[in-house]
């Protein structure tokens, strides 16, 4: 055996023995499987990885991944992720959650996370409905749709998470479908490998509250981005987030911008570098009258 033992991690190695609570046929199974495969593809060390979530069906996901995991509070996953990454920039941080969690109660945190461009991956499981609370309208539900909380149909307009991410500063934005693993796995792998804030919107059908044909409906609308799409063009990227009647999948936007994670490290290097940090006594010294 060589001095350094290389253990090849397989997708199954990232599984915990906890059984998912999701309904049979839920799109989130696809996302979870894609995540196992992406982690294995990148050979990400479980002990140096944190998977974060808020509250919702999809937010149960961290319990099923054998890394460090935190299923936190509704809408707040990105705040915890921001803390983990600020405090320990060397860790791999992946945040997951649903569209109600991320776009409604967590909307403010989402836009600021995009803006900060920390090196975090955010995977949104998008099903246009609140599943865990059993079927209320979400900010992504199409206008007019009947839900448990919109008896006469949804009177509000829907937002598109990808459009919001691109316009508020995320540096990698992609869209995939939980029912197309061949396409989703490389997409998710690219998202995790991206340096900066990467946002992957996965259309993940809710067969219980959006009808058992949501899979079929979404699949039919699926359309790949044209090959000549310029991923560095914000305008082109936003155009494809809002195409009528289709769900465009692929890498919508991909640029490199300075990340807050880098800035934190640069600042440390600049102010501390290889020097010994000041002692408490030295800090106290600065409070003597300066003259």
């Amino acid at each position, binding site marked *: 055996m060589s001095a350094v033992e290389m253990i090849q991690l397989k997708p199954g190695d990232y599984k915990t023995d906890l059984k998912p609570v999701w309904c049979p046929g839920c799109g989130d199974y696809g996302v979870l499987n894609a995540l196992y495969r992406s982690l294995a593809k990148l050979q990400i060390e479980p002990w140096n990885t944190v998977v974060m979530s808020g509250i919702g069906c999809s937010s*149960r996901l961290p319990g099923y991944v054998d890394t460090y995991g935190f*299923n936190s509070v509704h809408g707040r996953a990105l705040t915890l992720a*921001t803390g983990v990454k600020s*405090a320990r920039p060397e860790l791999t941080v992946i945040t997951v959650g649903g569209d109600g969690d991320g776009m409604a109660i967590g909307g403010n*945190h989402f836009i600021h996370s995009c803006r900060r461009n920390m090196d975090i991956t955010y995977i949104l499981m998008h099903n246009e409905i609140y599943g865990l609370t059993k079927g209320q309208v979400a900010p992504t539900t199409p206008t007019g749709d009947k839900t448990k909380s919109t008896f006469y149909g949804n009177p509000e307009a829907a937002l598109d998470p990808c459009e919001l991410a691109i316009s508020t500063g995320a540096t990698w934005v992609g869209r995939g479908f939980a029912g197309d693993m061949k396409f989703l796995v490389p997409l998710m792998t690219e998202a995790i490998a991206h340096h900066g804030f990467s946002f992957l919107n996965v259309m993940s059908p809710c067969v219980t509250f959006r009808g058992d044909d949501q899979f079929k409906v979404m699949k039919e609308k699926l359309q790949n981005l044209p090959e000549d799409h310029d991923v560095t063009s914000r305008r082109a990227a936003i155009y494809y987030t809002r195409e009528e009647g289709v769900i465009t999948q692929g890498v919508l936007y991909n640029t490199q911008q300075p990340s807050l994670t880098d800035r934190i490290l640069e600042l440390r290097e600049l*102010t501390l570098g290889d020097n010994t*940090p000041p002692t408490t006594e030295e800090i106290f010294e600065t409070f003597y009258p300066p*003259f």
Partner: protein
Amino acid sequence: MPTGDLVLAMFGSGGDGVVTMGEMMAQAGAKDGLDVMRVEAYGPQIRGGESSCTVRLSNQPIYTQGDEVEVVVVFNWQDFLRFKGELVVAQDAVILYEESDTTPLEDVGLSLGEEARWIPVPFIALAKEAAGTTLAKNIVTLGILSEAFGVPQALIEKAIVYKFSKKKAAVLEANIKGYKAGIEWGADIKDRVTDRYLEYEPGEARLLMSGNDASAVGALHAGCRFFAGYPITPSSEVLHFLSEWMPKVGGSIIQTEDELSAMGAIIGGSFAGVKSMTATSGPGLALMTEMLGLASMAEIPVVIIDVQRGGPSTGLPTKSEQSDLFQALWGSHGDAPRVVLAPADVEDCFHATVAAFNIAEEAQMPVIVLSDQFIAQRRETMSPWSLKHEVVDRVRPTDEELAEGGYERYADTPTGISPMTWPGIKGGEYQTNGLEHTEDGRPTSMYLVHERMNEKRYRKLRDVRAKYSYVRKYGAEKADVGILCWGSSKGPVKEAVMRAEAAGQKVSAFVPQVLYPFPRREFEEYLKTVKNVVVVEISYSAQFYKYLKTFLDLPSDTFVFKRSGGKNLTVAEVEEKIQKVLELSAIRREVLV
């Protein structure tokens, strides 16, 4: 007869340089080894508006800002009047007021004794004439104060040189001229104010810090390497200080989009193995309360400094109150254990913050430090030797222990404290959540587990109580009047107790520094030593009194002195209550006989 203790207050509009003047005096005093306390007060305006600054200089240890102002500088009577309800001017005070302000003195409504000295001063004219600008009137005033009242003259000049050394030479020169003109003018009134001339033996230079400074340094000392915060008066100085220092010690700092995010971020930071803290005020704590429960449930050590201000809602953002007590103690959905500490002065802010980290790390739960505007934003002198505090670090299971297997993040141990790993520790991976969970962290909704885990989480407080029952007691061993107070009320209460003792009265005070878990045994022992009990607090609804009643057998005839914040507690107020309690209890005894 010169004095060894002098209280000066200055009033003006933003731009009059009132605060700068106070800062220079405080620094000069600290440099000369005096005990100094400097308190600022503002209106809520962003720029301009009224501002005031009170400086007490003493050759003896001081615990308060001083009840009565002995030297008053008024640049503008209108500004002075806005603070009128908040201060007491000594009957024999010296009032230096702007000569050109035409407000009739009878409209000022200051009824002072015959001995008071009303001295009109041409601040504006002197500044214009000597320095060529009215902006220098605060510097002129410093000249007057140093010559006539003994505020360290040579050091004030050094302070002026320091302040203007980065500006053009002409600016410095003009200000020095203004200063000299003030000295010259001051010489003419010196004979009239000899009783207010500060006399002392210079000593070793002292540190001059605010409570917010002390909290920030305490955090760094404790090993805090991640701070997340959202600006809010009166806590923002903690954020400001750490924005400079956190990178210098190899840590990280982030200003979040709101207080929800700040709380989430520090829970994340601490989960990742780094000691983490935030600082806020009441409205911010309200938002953080959501995830306070998460920190309790997931057993993540975090420190939250709440610098209280007048409330509810936006309330009195720039002024102090002790009315976040209930929010800190009980604010939560569900049963969420936390520890609440209460620093009582600037130095305490350092110690309480370090202790907060120690407790948080040991007990794996949130610790709230209930500071307030009164101590957080005033500046006090301190001696470096008093600023030492042992630091406790988080303990992790060893690699050998982890290799043996069976690691359970929430293992139910006799103390309730479970082993804890964090990212980077191989073999220590665990998935946690805000759901009720079993010992291995798996979600559950079973009643039996919930009951047992609640009991486990609360059991951790036993060790905290046993190890950290910090209380302070002052005054007579057996007392006729025992005062119960907390936090910043300590200063005026302590001074009142000392004065009462000097006058031969038997008075004592009990000041817990740990509010939850309450140092119950110490408190019960204390109650046995006092005949009458009076609770003193700055909360209109008497939160502290009600809190004490929740757990403890207070005598049925306990007196309560409570009032709203917005005005700092004074020694005279406390003394008055002591007298009242003595009188009333005498009447009571008469009746009983």
